[in-house]
């Protein structure tokens, strides 16, 4: 399974977009900002109901990859699929329809700061369901309870700590019970204990059948959550395999990253 890119081509994927089993598929995706190539012919496939980790140093295109999956960015070349839908070709209501099936936890949670924590979680429910106000508030409370924030419903996002904001962001991302959850740097700016709490919540989601795509540089989190790990370097996939396979990689860059960031 393990691949190190210098010697080997990236994984082949079948071209039938209707195939089952892949929650997400990037097919020869490239993206540049000005003269800087951020993603360079990236091809990957995320199996359904799995934990898929994208590792790499800062600025190697990890977050850009997530943004392509949810259609916040479009590739210069290549195609992006979520299930059978080609996200990179969709716009308007059809793109919105796909996005409803995806939860996205942003690096800094990106809570709407003009409304309360509870209303942040209720927001997707108000927009996309026909539930009554009481049912929406009830559902939002349940989601906050599931991340340990049941008492913070009426607080404003600015009144929460970094870890609490991230948990509230996770509750909002899970409000519509999406089958696919994208997570951008869940441990960024958090202490090890809070990181562990967030990882536990994400692990619980995976056990419930949610497909996780997690961008991180934290090896401990990657090992805990990842069934498969890819490592990006300068916009290219330089390794793909399990954590154990990456640790035993013949590629010095991959081994160096795994050991340098171990426990990080």
């Amino acid at each position, binding site marked *: 399974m393990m691949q190190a890119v210098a010697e080997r081509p990236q994984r082949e994927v079948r071209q039938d977009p209707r195939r089952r089993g892949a929650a997400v598929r990037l097919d020869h995706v490239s993206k540049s900002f000005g003269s800087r190539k951020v993603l360079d012919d990236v091809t990957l496939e995320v199996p359904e109901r799995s934990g898929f980790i994208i590792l790499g140093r800062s600025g190697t295109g990890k977050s850009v990859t997530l*943004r392509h999956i*949810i*259609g*916040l960015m479009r590739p210069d070349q290549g195609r992006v699929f979520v299930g059978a839908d080609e996200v990179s070709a969709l716009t*308007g209501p059809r793109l*919105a*329809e796909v*996005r*409803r099936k*995806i939860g*996205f936890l*942003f*690096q*800094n949670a*990106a*809570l*709407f*700061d*003009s409304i309360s924590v509870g209303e942040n979680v209720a*927001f*997707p429910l108000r*927009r*996309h369901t026909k539930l009554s106000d009481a049912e929406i508030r009830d559902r939002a409370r349940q989601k906050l309870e599931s991340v340990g924030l049941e008492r913070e419903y009426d607080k404003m996002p600015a009144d929460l700590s970094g870890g609490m904001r991230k948990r509230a962001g996770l509750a*909002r991302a899970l409000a519509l019970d999406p089958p696919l959850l994208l997570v951008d740097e869940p441990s960024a700016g958090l202490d090890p204990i809070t990181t562990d709490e967030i990882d536990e919540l994400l692990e619980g989601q995976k056990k419930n059948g949610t497909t996780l795509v997690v961008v991180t540089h934290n090896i401990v989190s990657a090992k805990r959550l990842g069934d498969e790990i890819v490592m990006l370097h300068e916009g290219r996939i330089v390794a793909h395999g399990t954590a154990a396979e990456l640790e035993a990689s013949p590629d010095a860059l991959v081994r160096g990253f795994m050991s340098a960031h171990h426990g990080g």
Partner: protein
Amino acid sequence: MFDRVGRSTIAFLTTAGEISAFALKAVREAFVPPYEIRETIRQLYELGVRSAPLIAIAGLAVGVVLSMHTRASLERFGAEAMIPAGLAIALVRETGPLTAGLLLSGRIGAGIGAELGAMAVTEQIDALEASAVDAFRYLVVTRVAACVIAVPILTTLMNFSGMLGGYLAETTATGMSLNLYFNRAFSLVDMTDYIPATLKTMVFGFIIATTSSYLGFTTRSGTEGVGRASTHSVVMSSILIIVSNVVLVRLIFFIFPESGG
């Protein structure tokens, strides 16, 4: 030198083109359902109702000052009786709309530029999109609609509070009654003065909302960018209001010739 001028010109034209495209998109999207009624009402409250105290106080002060200046001029000709009517015409036709437009470009323009700018740099706009919400419709179209509705109403408030200020100055100077003051004030003002001048402020509202939303939406570079978006929103919308006012006044005289007399 020529290079620099050329680059500046291209940058200016590019920005102008982008703002125009942004404004056109706002108009187009405003008429396509589903409508964001709830958010538009919230924006009407935030941008409109919360601007009312500023406009009322400013209008009162403008009315007092205008009345004092008018008295100083008309006294020389023994035409003090014309003060209420002169003040009312000045307020309704030009001073009220332009002053309200400029004040609101400060309050609303800075607010929208800073709020959307902060949302852009903290990924809240991306979070809206990721939540399957059309951020342009939710954030921009609602603010444009709220401004187009609120600015004429606030201009009317400015006109009335200006007249009230004029009355306070007059009653202090001469003891004129409220009834007599407003009878004289409305003796020369009719709907052809009020309607075109007030409708023109819908354009001011559109300018304020689209310019500041564009600058907020396209904010980069963190808090520094947010500050820049806020400042530029005020400067650009003020300039555009003053320039567009010239065109609009000419247009009003063309469509309503009687309002020129």
